[in-house]
């Protein structure tokens, strides 16, 4: 994934001042400003509150950090695609087939402007994704219900509507953390070049069964 060239787009966002840029390098991120809304709120804390965290991920092999950047070089949205941590269930599928959408976040003032959809599209549209199984895990306790004024179930539906256009579908899994709450969500996108054996192994993995 990281062998790709950065790609940029300013289309489809309602505000043309926002550019969506994928495969950002740590150096590029270092030159940008981080919107202070990515921080701690009364009942919500952003997954990444420091720009340096994005820089560290961008330096990882095959990671894709996609940013929504305002004209004044302010980051107003970000998406992170990277391999799962070795300790996670999803890392068991080898060789490194699974890639996690670890975060999609847009600053509160920039929401409802279709920024997240553009970030996700950039994050998952690279041709190498056809050889991968991309997935997302939605833990309801990480959602900004206060800022969006949504219930957990409404937020869940919003995530499904966000991810489905990019080819993600909801899958069942017995992964214990996901099963903690029925509103939690697990979605995946199986690339067209993924072979049947890997698809079957992914199924076993979802239910914690050794092949």
């Amino acid at each position, binding site marked *: 994934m990281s062998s790709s060239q950065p790609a940029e787009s300013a289309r489809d966002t309602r505000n043309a001042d926002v550019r969506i840029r994928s495969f950002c390098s740590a150096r590029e991120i270092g030159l940008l400003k981080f919107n202070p809304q990515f921080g701690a709120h009364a009942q919500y804390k952003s997954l990444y509150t420091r720009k340096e965290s994005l820089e560290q991920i961008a330096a990882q092999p095959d990671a894709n950090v996609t940013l929504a950047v305002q004209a004044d070089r302010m980051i107003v949205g970000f998406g992170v695609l990277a391999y799962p941590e070795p300790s996670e269930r999803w890392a068991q599928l080898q060789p490194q087939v699974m890639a996690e959408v670890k975060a999609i976040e847009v600053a509160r003032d920039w929401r409802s402007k279709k920024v997240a959809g553009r970030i996700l599209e950039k994050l998952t549209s690279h041709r190498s994704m056809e050889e991968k199984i991309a997935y997302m895990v939605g833990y309801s306790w990480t959602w900004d*219900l206060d800022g969006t004024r949504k219930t*957990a*179930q409404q937020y869940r539906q919003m995530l499904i509507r966000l991810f489905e256009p990019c080819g993600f*579908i909801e899958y*069942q899994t017995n992964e214990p953390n996901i099963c903690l*709450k*029925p509103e939690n969500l697990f979605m995946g996108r199986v690339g067209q070049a993924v072979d049947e054996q890997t698809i079957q192994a992914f199924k076993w993995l979802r*239910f914690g*069964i050794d092949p």
Partner: protein
Amino acid sequence: MRYPKEVVLKDRSEAVIRPLQKDDGGMLSRFYAAIPDNNRWYMRHDVTDPLVIKKMIDSIGRGNVFSTVALVGDRIVAHASLLMRGHGSTQHVGRLRIAVLPGYRHKRLGTWVLLDLIQYAMDTGLNDLRADFVVGIEDNAIESARKLDFFKVAVIPEYVKSPRGIRYDLQIMVKRLHRTWADF
């Protein structure tokens, strides 16, 4: 919600969960015919009666009942229903009924079917789910419900009678469908 939902059971067998369909009548009759008499006894309706099955099929799409089935191949192995009043003081409550073929119990199928209906109930905006169990007869189901945060709200002592006249307690369990994660 996305259907069919594919699940893998403890013994590696695979089942598919989907809504009950208009042409499922025959399969549903065969499913209930395979449920032992001593299980059917505790069900709310005589499911061996073709009219009862017809009523289940006729209720599809009418709004007050949402039913799903779990299939292995072309055989129904579980049937679940969420019953909603749709008006009045208990319109926020959904009542659950689940039946699983004996050969598919203790394989987590009931849990998957229940979890699916919980998600459906949340999508439809219900606040509470209620399920009634016969203590001493449906203890495994009580335990499964408890693991999904159902809790005991009432017990009606010696309310249910077995075919031989032995009385059992009826336990009413409720699950609150929280709208935020603040309960966590």
